[in-house]
């Protein structure tokens, strides 16, 4: 098998490998800026320099030539090589900054050059703390700079588009953003303009950078040149906690990270998953953080007279709910599940009311034909349409649902804005007693007689099945009134040494929503109704689903965590893939 020698260690390899990626794959490090594993390799930042050469082999005998000490002779390449574009060959010798002073020096000098015109305004830069330039300068860079001349000034605070702001002075012209628009989003909206020390990325004149994936350039920008217009100056990265989650704004289920501080989600960034979204996500998904923070249903509310809702206590809500159920037979109760809610919630709700004699829950997919783009934006606007299908809820179209609602005396809706997305009109809900389990005060919740606030994807652990049938799950990222991050072992707590200090990521106890996970509320309701129903956790619900429904066989949170989601078999389902 072909072999390479990196920092005096021997490695075997098969197939084509570039030195940088191979070195990174071995868990070692070489600094770099412009290289990105999902894009082409321009080798223009020159940061990943290594010293490379080849053991000299005698062509006739096939033996390595040895020097007087019996060591293999090395023919070094005449200059430093950029490891990102250096293809591994049999017998190649590579020395990184760890073993070669020359490589170390080359990297240091490259950084000094990159920093000639960089403003070094880290204290006011949004990228500080997650900036490859900052990190690598500390690690590999020079102590100071010999360039004491005035820096070149370039445009600042340029609004490239509705969501991205450019600070051209910070740019090191790695062209990652340009290559992103050329190779990934294929809108070709960006280019590098001008030349020499005056160049920076820009759109064509009179055009805006309104690419539906534009904010990915902010993520891949290795400096603070491209920043999110929305997130700028809101928080420093080290003040936030990062929790893995799933994008709930469309059917693709992009893997994301929620960044939280003081129980508020401040931004959403993509999390790599080769099987789903690679490193990317659409801009739309990033604004979902507003759904988690604002206009939340907090405390139950009840309609007492006419159309006025007022807040009420949990006890009163449970009592009202129970009395409503007791006053009607199971046949009169219509249960509407939701493609916007998780697998666990839909299952728990359906099972609970089945026990009370209601028929199987219905749901209406939320699909806008022609909305998708074949990449990460889908026609499907809901994260869990396939989950509802696999749970065998009754897929119902708009008309049939309206008919069913008009026949029912009690209508129970699981967080789905049926009025807002024009499946039914608010007036359609007028003749039935409507109970909404709601995360947000949507038109549907406002039109309901009783609103039970439930946790959203940022507050509970629950799973969602995307349009390709991949089941993936969320983690609680923010506390509710009734949870505590020390007690909830699933929550990312932030640094323990900061717990309770002024430097904790939770400085205030505000922004906690007064809501319960759906299953917790059902437990309380079951207790009141004397129903034999109790679940401890969404994990228990999933275990039950996995033993009851063949499609979910062997599905557990642990397995999802290990494998970044599990591909389910959709064969028995009629799935529109859009």
């Amino acid at each position: 098998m072909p072999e390479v020698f990196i920092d005096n260690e021997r490695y075997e390899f098969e197939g084509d490998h570039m030195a940088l990626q191979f070195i990174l794959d071995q868990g070692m490090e070489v600094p770099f800026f412009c290289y990105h594993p999902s894009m082409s390799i321009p080798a223009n930042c020159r940061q990943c320099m290594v010293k490379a050469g080849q053991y000299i082999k005698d062509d006739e005998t096939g033996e390595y030539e040895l020097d007087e000490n019996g060591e293999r002779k090395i023919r070094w390449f005449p200059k430093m090589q950029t490891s990102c574009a250096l293809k591994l060959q049999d017998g190649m010798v590579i020395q990184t900054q760890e073993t070669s002073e020359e490589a170390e020096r080359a990297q240091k000098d490259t950084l000094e050059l990159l920093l000639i015109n960089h403003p070094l305004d880290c204290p006011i830069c949004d990228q500080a703390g997650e900036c490859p330039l900052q990190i690598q300068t500390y690690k590999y860079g020079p102590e100071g700079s010999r360039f004491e001349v005035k820096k070149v000034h370039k445009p600042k605070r340029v609004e490239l588009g509705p969501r991205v702001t450019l600070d051209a002075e910070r740019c090191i012209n790695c062209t990652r953003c340009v290559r992103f628009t050329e190779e990934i989003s294929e809108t070709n909206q960006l280019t590098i303009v001008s030349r020499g020390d005056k160049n920076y990325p820009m759109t064509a004149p009179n055009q805006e950078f309104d690419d539906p994936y534009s904010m990915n350039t902010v993520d891949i920008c290795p400096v603070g040149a491209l920043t999110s217009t929305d997130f700028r100056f809101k928080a420093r990265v080290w003040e936030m906690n990062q929790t893995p989650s799933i994008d709930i704004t469309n059917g693709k289920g992009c893997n994301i990270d929620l960044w939280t501080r003081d129980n508020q989600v401040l931004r959403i960034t993509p999390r790599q998953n080769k099987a789903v979204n690679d490193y990317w996500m659409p801009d739309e998904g990033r604004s979902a953080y507003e759904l988690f923070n604002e206009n939340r249903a907090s405390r139950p509310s009840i309609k007492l007279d006419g159309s006025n809702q007022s807040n009420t206590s949990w006890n009163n809500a449970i009592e009202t709910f129970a009395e409503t159920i007791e006053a009607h037979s199971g046949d009169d109760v219509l249960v509407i599940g939701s493609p916007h809610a998780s697998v666990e919630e839909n299952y728990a709700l359906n099972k609970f009311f089945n026990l009370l004699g209601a028929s199987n829950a219905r749901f209406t997919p939320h699909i806008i034909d022609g909305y998708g783009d074949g990449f990460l934006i889908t026609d499907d606007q809901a994260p869990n349409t396939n989950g509802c299908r696999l749970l065998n809820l009754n897929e119902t179209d708009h008309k049939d649902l309206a008919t069913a609602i008009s026949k029912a005396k009690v209508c129970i809706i699981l967080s789905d804005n049926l009025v807002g997305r024009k499946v039914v009109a608010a007036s359609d809900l007028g003749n039935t007693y409507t109970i909404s389990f709601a995360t947000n005060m949507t038109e549907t919740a406002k039109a309901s007689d009783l609103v039970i606030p439930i946790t959203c994807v940022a507050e509970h652990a629950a799973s969602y099945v995307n349009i390709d049938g991949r089941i993936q799950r969320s983690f609680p990222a923010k506390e509710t009134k009734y949870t505590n991050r020390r007690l909830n072992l699933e929550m990312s707590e932030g640094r323990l040494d900061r717990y309770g200090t002024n430097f904790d990521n939770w400085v205030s106890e505000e922004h906690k929503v007064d809501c319960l996970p759906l299953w917790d509320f059902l437990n309380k309701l079951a207790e009141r109704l004397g129903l034999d129903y109790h679940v401890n956790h969404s994990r228990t619900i999933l275990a039950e689903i996995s033993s009851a429904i063949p499609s979910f066989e062997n599905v557990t949170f642990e397995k999802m965590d290990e494998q970044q989601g599990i591909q389910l078999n959709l064969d028995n389902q009629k799935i529109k893939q859009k």
Partner: protein
Amino acid sequence: MAEQELHFTDEELNEIEKIKAKFPTAKAATLRVLWVAQKKYGHVEPEVQALVAKTLDLPESHVHGVASFYTQYYKEEMGKFVLDVCTCLSCQLCGGYDVLHQIEDRLGIKAGETTDDGLFSVQEVECLGACGYAPMVQITNGVYANNLTEEKVDKLLENLKNGKMPEFESMVMRQNEKRIKAATE
């Protein structure tokens, strides 16, 4: 400019087709086609860049990037004659700035400006590779006026005002003049 729709004539489109045929991709023809456009309009303002992009079926951003890279493409309307005065080392030593200031004086504009009648633009440029015949001026990306003196500059301006471009001269370094003369005789 923006109101009227810009377009290439059939003749120009033919020329562009011929240029395209010389390159493996349309992208590679960007430089040459930008020249065609600049020859026609005298500049490559954003609208002209957009026209080139449309003609070659390329992203506007790419054409913009290329046009902005090269100083020889005029990104705004320039005078009929663009005087590129070299003030790089050799010219500077031989009086490049004198030439520049003389031109500025005579035309009443500063480097980087265009006269009101739209006849002249003056620019200060870096080395044009004519160090042997410094100081020198290039006229509208074309001919060089070499070994300039005060009189020569005045003459040059006068001639240009009358629409007379200087002839292309084949230059010989001063130190080689005698040797070449001897060799040819």
